[in-house]
């Protein structure tokens, strides 16, 4: 029920974001859209807290709870842009991502996983939470990067229409994208380090063919590339925005591909 409330609030927010886009971001539309998204995040927190209380475990294990948690972390990423003025408008990209993840989670049924993992306890909680936070950071970088490319296109096409009016300034988007990447990179690296430490400590072996491991390393490399392209001359902001957009899309596509071919799908993410 609380998930449905959160979902409704997210959908209401999305409708308002698009209405704001059509009016060029004038008036109080963007503020109300952001407020609705924040209310959705609050309802989402309550929903996952109730899950934890009911089943005695954090929603980090099993596909549906994990997807819902990733959606919540991305939502929190959006709420964190509160003080950024027009930067909050990344909500128009982030809210659909949150809705998509939450709709899939709710349709699968947000229930605890029945299979037990070797990897559990505090190690597991920190590892998964940090990994999800890393993905949340990359999602924020993706949203900022996408809007950066849109605004850059409007500026070079010398158009000052409603898309130009709605889209935040390049400098704001670049700063937000960089912050998302830095936060994401740090947390994701820590998550990988924890996973690796646990594996070498308790398993004494490292299964490099595990799709989860392949995917995690690919994600980390994408972070590295997104940072790497900022070095050197030319429009480094544009390269970084492009890398964030392509990188995040690649992660989603690869994930879907791996889920389809992997036999270990049940525990993957």
């Amino acid at each position, binding site marked *: 029920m609380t998930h449905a409330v959160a979902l409704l609030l997210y959908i209401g927010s999305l409708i308002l974001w698009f209405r704001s886009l059509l*009016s*060029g971001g*004038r*008036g109080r539309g963007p503020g109300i859209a952001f407020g609705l998204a924040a209310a959705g995040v609050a309802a989402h927190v309550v929903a996952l807290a109730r899950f934890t209380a009911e089943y005695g475990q954090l929603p980090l294990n099993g596909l549906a709870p994990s997807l819902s948690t990733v959606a919540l972390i991305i939502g929190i990423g959006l709420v964190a842009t509160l003080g950024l003025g*027009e930067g909050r408008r990344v909500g128009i990209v982030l809210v659909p991502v949150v809705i998509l993840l939450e709709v899939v989670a709710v349709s699968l049924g947000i229930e605890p996983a029945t299979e037990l993992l070797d990897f559990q306890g505090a190690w597991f909680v920190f590892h998964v939470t940090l990994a999800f936070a890393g993905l949340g950071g990359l999602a924020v970088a993706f949203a900022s990067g996408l809007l950066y490319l849109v*605004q850059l296109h409007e*500026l*070079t096409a*010398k*158009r*000052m*229409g409603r898309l*130009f*009016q709605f*889209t*935040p*300034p*390049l*400098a*704001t988007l670049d*700063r937000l994208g960089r912050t998302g990447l830095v936060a994401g990179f740090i947390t994701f690296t820590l998550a990988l380090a924890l996973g690796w430490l646990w594996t070498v400590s308790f398993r004494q072996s490292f299964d490099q063919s595990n799709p989860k491991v392949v995917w995690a390393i690919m994600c980390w490399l994408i972070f590295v590339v997104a940072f790497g392209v900022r070095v050197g*001359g*030319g*429009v*480094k*902001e544009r390269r970084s925005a492009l890398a964030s957009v392509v990188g995040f899309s690649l992660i989603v596509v690869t994930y879907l591909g791996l889920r389809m071919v992997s036999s270990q799908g049940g525990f993957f993410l």
Partner: protein
Amino acid sequence: MSPVSVVGVSHLTAPVEIRERFAFTPAEAEAVLGGLRAGSEVEEAVLLSTCNRTEVYVCPGGNERVQDAAERVLSDKAGEVVGGTKQYLYRHDGEASVRHLYRVAGGLASLILGEAEIQGQVKDAYELAGGNPATPPLAGPVLHRLFQSALSAGGRIRSTTPIGEGAASVASVAVELARKIFGSLEGRQVMILGAGTTAELVVEALRRDGIRGLVVSNRTYERASELASRLSGHAVHFDEMPFELAKTDILIASTAAPHPLVTRDGFRHAREGSPSRPLLILDLAIPRDVEPEVGHEANVFLYNVDDLHEILDDNLLKRRESVPEAEAIVEEYARDFLRWYGSRGVVPVIRSLRQRWDDVRQRELERLWQKLSHASADDRDAVEAFSKQLLNKLLHDPTKRLKQGVGNGRGVEFIDAVRYLHDLEAVEADRSEASGPGDDDEAEVDE
């Protein structure tokens, strides 16, 4: 019964050299309005003076002497004008003056359609007429209501229609572009190349948004120095320009040079140390001061005169398309105001109407009793009751329709018609003599 009249001069009726002679400072406006009320039949007055219009709103409307008094205020200010001031002035009365103010506040009557500054100017004029606690307010209940409603209409027009959307001058386009590139303009460096007026306007607009550092470079150092001191910047010799370019965020070029002053090679050389720093270039010169190839460099946003005018034309077209929507809002607010104004007048009119025909009834009854002196007291009571009932029946529908007229915005029109058809002026004059000044009926009619 007209609520208000307006007498004024605007960009539509007079060129700037005439308009500027009608311009009032706030202190002058206050003094003049005080005098206007003291020495005439003017009950309420507000003076709006902007660079594109000067208007005097006066109450009561529909009174030529009041309008003449307002016109004298303007003519006295302008002084001697070839051919007289009358040719430049316009008058609106009643509903037309109400709609006029709403259109003015909404930016529909502005030189630049939809410009926002007029809203603040209307507010200032209104506050000036009622805001000095040391003097009696110059705006009374009618103009208070009218101006508050006009400000509200103006606000709604701007927030719900695209009439104010998109920049409408080169300076505001520049500010908007700069904001969308840099976000905050706080601490940004601007360089002017040349000494054009438009460049100056752009710098002033950017300064309002927070830019601090300003460098002026010109082939003639003296001219650069003069402009720099006027704009609180600093001048540099022309050969220092490339060095300054490396530190610049916004470059405004407007020289009269016959060939480009900023070439691609020169630009690359100048920006060697900071090749990817975003740079907004506004090339306002014809022929162009900046080679078009410079616009292909990394993080350079180059706009020439044609680009800027294309943006302006596009924005103004969008503004023009929103006029019908804005006019509908004006109509809605005008109807509301006229309904309110009508409701102020309907109660005294109904009272006068009843009194008028009750007097007739009583006179006719007296005449009747003289003829029927034998009538008993019971008969007299019965006839008296019948006459009252008949009067009530006869006046019931007109009274009801009059109140409905107020409800649907035709109150002023109906009240005028009733007063004329029933010759109520005499009754109202008698009543005002009997009741004395200040005993005005302002009750509203609830339908």
